[in-house]
């Protein structure tokens, strides 16, 4: 057979195709379904929610027990600057979070009191739609999960979240963690993180760390689908606020006046 240019191109092309078959196959075939949650059916029967009592929370001024507990067990670093701040649970003055509920408060000075903010674990979470890699998704029990190993750091979920619940690791966070909790993963630079409603504790039958840490029991946690649960009891016949319910995200964190 004469070795023409055409033959060369043919053989070369086939070789390239052959060599690229395996990596190509790996890229496109290995799309695993998002981690199967432990016993999806059992989870689907539950819908976790949280209630926060303003007045109980305001009893001790300057108390940060819930924040400290959360940030300690989840290896949330203290970056020291507003620019690179990472927070899973934090506070803002009442007048800024609920300006539309100005007159419900009895006392004027309460306007400046702190309101605890965290990921709302929305029932219709916008962030999940925006993520290009499905690194964030909603579990059957309604918890909005985050896979630090799949996040590419595009920060589109941060743009999509109307509550500012997500933080980005602008640099390697590990040197900024005081005592590393070996039972929870640390993050690398370049990924997004947020509150996870303590899934790792729920799996062990424990309540979230912030709820447990509060001495005043200002935080209540439980299954919203169970009419006899602690959270449903707490919400019954009360004046309830949610953050920006008009956006249709259906937050599962309730504020109880």
């Amino acid at each position, binding site marked *: 057979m004469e070795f023409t240019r055409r033959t060369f191109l043919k053989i070369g092309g086939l070789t390239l195709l052959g060599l690229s078959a395996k990596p190509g196959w790996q890229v496109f075939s290995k799309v695993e379904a998002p981690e199967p949650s432990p016993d999806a059916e059992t989870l689907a029967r539950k819908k976790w929610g949280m209630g926060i009592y303003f007045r109980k929370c305001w009893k001790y001024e300057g108390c940060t027990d819930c924040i400290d507990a959360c940030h300690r067990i989840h290896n949330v670093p203290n970056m020291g600057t507003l620019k690179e701040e990472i927070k899973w649970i934090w506070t803002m003055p009442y007048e800024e979070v609920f300006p539309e509920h100005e007159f419900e408060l009895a006392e004027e000075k309460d306007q400046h009191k702190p309101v605890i903010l965290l990921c709302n674990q929305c029932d219709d979470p916008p962030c999940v739609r*925006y993520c290009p890699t499905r690194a964030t998704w909603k579990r059957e029990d309604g918890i909005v999960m985050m896979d630090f190993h799949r996040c*590419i750091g595009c920060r589109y979920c941060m*743009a999509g979240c109307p509550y500012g619940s997500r933080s980005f690791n602008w640099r390697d966070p590990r040197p900024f963690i005081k005592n590393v909790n070996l039972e929870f993963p640390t993050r690398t630079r370049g990924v997004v993180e947020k509150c996870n409603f303590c899934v790792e504790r729920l799996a062990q039958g424990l309540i979230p760390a912030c709820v447990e840490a509060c001495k005043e029991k200002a935080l209540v946690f439980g299954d919203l689908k169970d009419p006899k649960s602690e959270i449903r009891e707490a919400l019954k016949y009360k004046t309830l606020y949610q953050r920006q319910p008009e956006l249709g995200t259906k937050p599962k964190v309730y504020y109880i006046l």
Partner: protein
Amino acid sequence: MEFWRAAHCNFELLFAQSSMTPILQHASFYWTLMLDQRKKIIGEDTVLFEHIWKSGKGFYITVSILGALVLLAIYAYVTQYRTGLTVTGLSRQIFWGVYITNFVFFIGISHAGTFISAVLRILKAEWRRPISRASELTTVFILMFGVGSVLIDLGRPDRMLYAIRYANFQSPLLWDVCSIATYLTVSSLSLYLALIPDIAMLRDLGGKREWFYRILSLGWTGTEGQHHRLDKAIGFVSILVIPVMITVHTVVSFVFAMTIQPLWHSAIFGPYFVVGAIFSGVASVIVVMAVLRKAYHLENYIKPIHFNNIGIFLMAMTLLWFYFTFAEYITIVYGNDPVHMSIFWSKFTGKFAPLFWLHFVLCFVIPLPILAIKKFRTIRGTVIVSISIVLGMWLERFVIIVPTLTRQRMPVQGAFYIPTWVEWSILAGCISLFTLLYVLFTKVFPIVPVWEVREGREKAAATAAARITSYMPETGAPKE
């Protein structure tokens, strides 16, 4: 070139002496034949080929400066890759800045090439011929930087392929990936197709790089059948590329419009961004044309009439851009939603006011009078306007993206953004690398499509005349 001229002279000298042996006579005949062919290929368009072969002092100086800026950008990116995005001015609150602005801006610029070459081709505007390649090349090269800007912005660039591996087609970012990939393919194809006859000319001229041109020319010999097929292919691609172009900037705007953030969540963002894209793109093509004209002595090809014609189009775009901007803001002001208004006031009178009003002046106040008055619509006039528009449109993208992040739905702390040297170096590096690639392209291929210009010279007048005749009412007795 010099060598050929010298060779020619020598042989003429030999002829004059008329003391040749028959062998020499044979050789000289061969040379004359070669030179004749050369002359036939180059014809009167020597200047269109000259920039491929000749590299003056200016070329080396330009390349060194651009190369240095590219190296600076590489250093900046390596710094960012090693320490993380902390080296930028971005923060928890304002997490998108210069890079995302660049992304929208560069992809916007890429719309001009298609617009000028494909649309004018379909409209049979004969004056497009000398400038179609310059604009298509702008499209293809700048598009790569649009894509690159997003990749530079990623926190984990090592995982960028996850966007394909674990693709979530619900995310507007994936729509961008699909749309931009299609656009890059189609516009590269359109650039290449129109290059084939010119590559064949370069192949026939011979020289060291003949093998390279031989492969790329795909056996083009310029027969009737080949021309017919090429025309068909170019026509098809020109039509295909227009809807693709519209989708590109539409889905780029959707990245913002699909969120529920104040002043991003707007239904007119799709067309508004497309108009802005064509606006800034056409302006940058004017700048590119002026530079090429000056640097490569193309005065006889790229004429004041080209600047005038594109200038008129640019004026229409200025007005259209103003119309969209006005429609966007009047809706917000009249609606008076406090969440939207707080961002609106930060642009109108607040801390973004200097940038907002500067961009308005650059995009509207300066361009409109200059473009509207015929006396000012000269080469100098349109270039000044174009530079103003290009700067203004970069700022426009910036004042669309950043102010919304300063205060999403409630006041926040730490909403403060000053880009650092890393971001500015990468911006400068992107523009430099774009220019460098452009310059290097002109060292390999002619920047004015020689065959198209010739085709125009030979056939356009007759075709246009026939076309015009066909518009006219028939005279004489109606045909049976």
